């Protein structure tokens, strides 16, 4: 049953990255659009993510619940030591969510729209950056997990692990992935000139993601981060990264041909490969502190709890997934049946 739970954890995290990622990215694409194109982009973004964005963001709640129920030790480290970046993520999620709804449900469209728009765009960029930064805190090798926190300074205990160049590079990398997913999603949702703009954006973001990926690896390598050293040494990671490199050309070609289904599929595979590559070399030791590695399987909940959690997830999954699929299909985020 532990594997069922781990599967749902990975699956929820993956869907969060793909769906919420595209969703954050839509705001980044809007931010990066030129002034005269923003209004058009705003309309398209609303049409595409409006019906689904709330559902997209619930995956993070599922991830959190699985962590605290099934892996309380891991969750505890996350909430104690990464309190500050997590709070900043929440701030971003809140401002972004309300701005998105306010700007579409405010009955009078007046000057306040400018405020909503900027709140939405800026928080769409900053939230994924902080998501990446928070993740980096776990693997930066600067986390000082200790019983007697009083002896550590506030900086070493609560700031040092995520406030550094390596963390920032991971944050930017994740924001890049979001923008990449969104531009590819938007290609299939627009016509003519607008479609061409997203094609261009998709190309630029693809290249940007590759460059940012190299940046993360180089910084990590130069700073001798355990995470990156394990990554480049692991044959599995190398194979996965080679595979993802191999589909870059078909992806770029498919972007050029504006084929929406093929592009979306390839982009999805691309992100899955990158995530797998990152996790496979490290699993299950997902926390790298200043002096040791901690496994997510340390302090896992008892067998009975895992069993019940697994059953709950299977039941929940059978209710939610078909509904979600129909929602995505009805509003054409999935274009399989056309």
């Amino acid at each position: 049953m532990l594997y069922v739970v781990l599967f749902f954890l990975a699956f929820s995290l993956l869907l969060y990255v793909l769906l919420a990622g595209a969703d954050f990215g839509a705001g980044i694409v809007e931010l990066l659009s030129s002034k005269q194109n923003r209004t058009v982009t705003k309309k398209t973004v609303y049409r595409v993510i409006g019906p689904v964005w709330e559902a997209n963001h619930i995956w993070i709640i599922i991830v959190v619940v699985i962590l605290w129920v099934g892996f309380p030790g891991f969750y505890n480290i996350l909430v104690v030591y990464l309190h500050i970046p997590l709070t900043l993520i929440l701030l971003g999620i809140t401002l972004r969510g309300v701005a998105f709804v306010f700007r579409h449900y405010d009955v009078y469209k007046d000057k306040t729209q400018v405020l909503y728009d900027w709140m939405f765009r800026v928080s769409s960029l900053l939230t994924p950056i902080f998501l990446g930064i928070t993740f980096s805190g776990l693997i930066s090798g600067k986390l000082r997990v200790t019983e007697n926190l009083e002896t550590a300074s506030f900086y070493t205990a609560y700031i040092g692990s995520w406030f550094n160049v390596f963390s920032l590079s991971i944050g930017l990398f994740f924001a890049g992935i979001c923008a990449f997913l969104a531009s590819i999603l938007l290609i299939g949702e627009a016509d003519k000139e607008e479609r061409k703009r997203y094609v261009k954006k998709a190309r630029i973001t693809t290249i940007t993601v590759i460059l940012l990926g190299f940046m993360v690896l180089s910084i990590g390598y130069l700073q001798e981060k355990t995470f990156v050293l394990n990554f480049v040494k692991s044959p599995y990671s190398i194979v996965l990264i080679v595979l993802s490199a191999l589909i870059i050309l078909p992806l770029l070609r498919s972007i050029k041909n504006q084929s929406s289904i093929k592009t979306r599929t390839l982009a999805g595979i691309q992100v899955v490969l990158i995530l797998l590559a990152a996790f496979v070399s490290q699993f299950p030791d997902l926390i790298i502190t200043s002096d040791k590695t901690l496994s997510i399987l340390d302090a896992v909940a008892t067998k009975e709890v895992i069993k019940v959690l697994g059953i709950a997830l299977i039941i929940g999954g059978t209710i939610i997934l078909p509904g979600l699929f129909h929602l995505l299909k009805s509003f054409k985020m999935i274009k399989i049946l056309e």
Partner: protein
Amino acid sequence: MDNLDAARLQMAFTLIFHIVFACIGMVMPFFMVVAHKKWLNTKNPVYLTLTKSWQKGVAIFFVTGAVSGTALSFELGLLWPEFMKHAGPIIGMPFSLEGAAFFVEAIALGFYLYGWKKLPEQFHWFTGVIVGIAGVASGILVVSANGWMNAPSGFDYANGVFTNIDPIKALLNPAWFTQALHMTLAAFTATGFAVAGIHAFQIYKKRQVELHKKAFKIAITFGAVAAILQPISGDLSAKDIAKRQPVKLAAMEAHYHTTKGTPLYIGGIVDNDKQEVTHKIEIPKALSFLAFGDFNAEVKGLNDFPDDVKPKNIAMVHYAFQVMVGLGTLLMVAGILFFISLKKRSWWTHKRYWLFFFLLAPLGFVALEAGWIVTEVGRQPWIIHNVMKTKDAVTPMPGIVYSFYMYLVLYGTLSIAVTWLMIRQIKFLNNSNIH
């Protein structure tokens, strides 16, 4: 301010904020689908306009409830890591089911909000019903988790270690039913009276009277029925607390001394130093009867509990309890008056009738928040009743007070923004030409 106080304040403040939005988000869909059904049956455009404007309200309240709920799911751990480390696996069941229910709600809401003219009429309407049902289900599940904090069960505890964890038993803890029933009725009462009150004000001001009367009737019917049923649930809750948390009962009524045939205090000023309540109305033997069903039963006073197991702020618990019961009774009377007014329609022509219901608008929520203060402050110093103290659960990170200030500004601003949006919404509605 020390860290514990700051963390408690932040938790209290964010919960007080979230509860309002969560309640409206779970109850308003029911008003919306009733109006929608009436539109489908009568094809009266007033109902369509009403449905669509309530739908905008639902969307705005739902998102605010959803984001503050997401924040809370993190805050539980951010502020109380020791609590979550041990309680997380035990109360994971209600939370994971709540996650599922919330997911269903969000999916159904996506269908409903964007399904106009795209989905078959009846199916579209039905997705709205699912929004409501899923909302109530997630409310009940969250309250069940809180019930577990009041009536911990489904584990063995010795020397700081939790063993033999049974998540199902924890979900169905002894407090879950009474608390969930009380809270669900409270949510319907509070939202019903709040929405009805806003529409009553528009009728009072003679704006779009036809529409607002229809809206008023739908909302107040839900609110009035719930308010009339609430005392029964309140009685169940009181008896339950008397049995399981006698110290909370003593604090609610500010009884310092153990007595038999204990009177019920109404109102009064608590003097914690002299250990007495002055300026109160006393109903002889009533508390003994209400709590134990026996006029001569013994009610244990606060003095017979050790200092380290009873709440410090007796006055706050007592006042909050008085506010809850007082306002609940007032709303029940108002509910009965509404049903009488259905027979005596001449009342509806009086301006005072509408002013009365307008003035009641915020009171349901005041009562509801007061009720949560009773149950949460009344449980102190415990975070898990008789198992873990709140001070032992708080985060080791110093400086929580700054995080509290951040939430104060953020949610303060959001409250103003949402109110302002609602005012604009109503203004727009009043200026629109329906026919």
